[in-house]
């Protein structure tokens, strides 16, 4: 599992509420990624980070923000959750060979 944990693993929330998902890694990797996975779309990149306080947008970044205040944690925030953000969210790190290794995922339901 490349030392990646995600929390929470499951969350149900209501439209309009803020939500923060956490990704934690134990192996000091520089690059971290947030993806969402939906039927018919596969894995889509939301945001990624290439170091502490260094982040960039992915292909589906609208409605999401991220923060990385320390190497081991990468936070994904939905400022005001919408039903279209119901999805499974995966965090990943990039290893030495450019391979990405994924966490176990967070299932988010927005009612």
């Amino acid at each position, binding site marked *: 599992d490349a030392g990646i944990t995600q929390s929470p693993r499951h969350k149900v929330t209501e439209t309009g509420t803020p939500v923060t998902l956490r990704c934690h890694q134990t192996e000091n990797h520089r690059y971290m990624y947030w993806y969402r996975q939906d039927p018919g779309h*596969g894995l889509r990149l939301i945001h990624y980070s290439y170091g502490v306080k260094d982040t960039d947008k992915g292909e589906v970044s609208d409605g999401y923000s991220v923060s990385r205040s320390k190497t081991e944690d990468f936070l994904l925030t939905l400022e005001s959750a919408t039903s279209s953000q119901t999805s499974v969210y*995966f965090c990943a790190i990039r290893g030495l*060979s450019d391979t*990405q290794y994924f966490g176990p995922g967070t299932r988010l339901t927005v009612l």
Partner: protein
Amino acid sequence: GENVGLHLPTLSVQEGDNSIINCAYSNSASDYFIWYKQESGKGPQFIIDIRSNMDKRQGQRVTVLLNKTVKHLSLQIAATQPGDSAVYFCAENPRGAQKLVFGQGTRLTINP
């Protein structure tokens, strides 16, 4: 499970047979390719990778073939087992990019 598409390509094989899963990639500048396996309710799991200076790489029961001429990647799984049932998808890394581009996936079912 929650993973991937309602209309994924599917492949069914008998236990013990070999399977071949195909992937067409899009970017001729991609120089690194990865195959992932995703079981229901779990995150994608790295299986095998290959760089563009190779056309074949073997692992344990798995072989990846790369044909750059037609931008095609395949994953061969030998002597399939029930635990091989999963969704498999490829990913490509365009040269110089810090991001992977993922394919949609193929659902492999192993029949006893």
